[in-house]
């Protein structure tokens, strides 16, 4: 009877398992103020069969629960060989660090002539207009010593890519 009891419990418990062992599915969230419409939320997550093969996703959700920005990359390709299959704690620490963006204003973005080819996908007129309006700007890491900066557009109520930049800081 005892074997039957433990067997049944083990069987049912294993069927309920939500997380497959060895996978690299982690999430970290942080409340920030970016859109000027209240509290926004950043959710960063990793997913993959192991942490050396994981994808990272960076999401900004506004106060109404609507996603206004999402970015993704294979983490090892973006940040180098720092993610190993046998150290999921490192991934969790990385996500916590990653969820801390730099928030400023578009007026602090470089002027058009200072941009290198490929640094922005906007044309000169649009870029200069966004910069001149001094809108909220959020920069998150998108690679080693590399940040992606997005702006908040109050008219449309969404965020868009402004430019990418090299930075001296590195994500541990």
């Amino acid at each position, binding site marked *: 009877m005892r074997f039957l*009891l433990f067997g*049944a419990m083990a069987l049912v418990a294993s069927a309920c398992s939500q997380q497959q062992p060895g996978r690299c599915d982690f999430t970290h969230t942080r409340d920030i103020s970016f859109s000027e419409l209240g509290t926004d939320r950043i959710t960063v997550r990793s997913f993959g069969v192991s942490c050396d093969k994981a994808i990272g996703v960076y999401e900004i959700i506004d106060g109404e629960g609507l996603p206004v920005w*999402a970015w993704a990359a294979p983490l090892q390709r973006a940040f180098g060989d720092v993610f190993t299959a046998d150290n999921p704690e490192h991934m969790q620490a990385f996500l916590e660090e990653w969820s801390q963006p730099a928030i400023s204003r578009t007026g602090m973005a470089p002027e058009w002539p200072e941009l290198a080819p490929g640094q922005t996908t906007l044309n000169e007129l649009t870029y200069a207009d966004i910069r001149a309006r001094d809108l909220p700007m959020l920069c998150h890491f998108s690679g080693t010593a590399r940040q992606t900066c997005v702006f908040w557009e109050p008219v449309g109520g969404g965020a868009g890519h402004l430019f990418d930049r090299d930075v001296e800081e590195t994500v541990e």
Partner: protein
Amino acid sequence: MRILLLAAALVLSACGQNASTQSANACARSVTHEVTWSADGAPDTIATTADGPTCAQAVVTFVVRNAAGDPLWAFASTYYDLTMGGVPPEGAAPVSGEQMDTFLAAWANVTEERTAAFLPEWREGVATLSASAQTFSYSTPFDREIYERLRTQDLKLICYQAAVEGTHCLIIDPASHAPIMMVAYGP
């Protein structure tokens, strides 16, 4: 026997709590599609997924992995931005699971092309690729010399939707063997 039934009921009840936590994420959907791109004879897998409290609020991801499961490329956006542009207005119609599945299947079904035939020539003396093209507006991270060298090598190209009217096209860089975006284009 009564103890056995009670224990099973307890475990099942705990399982039910887990399930209800899971169902709070009301839009978790995924579609996969195979494409031969990074290596001949070893198909890559494209997985498109949606994740959000509702499908209208979903963040969607596009991930390409090679036959060994190594990630080659990832892209993320929101369902609404890819289908309508921007964020949903107040009172926007809900998005059903079936609508999301249709979108994810179409998104994963990338266009397969060759660079020489598909991409516009960047003519000598023209300042930008876009100025050299006729139908669409193009941007590329490369200068003319590198762009033309890659284009004329006639490489395999896969193109996926990256905005309502925007497309990104990827190649495997013959030098580094890494995937790179060759062009983004749209109206």
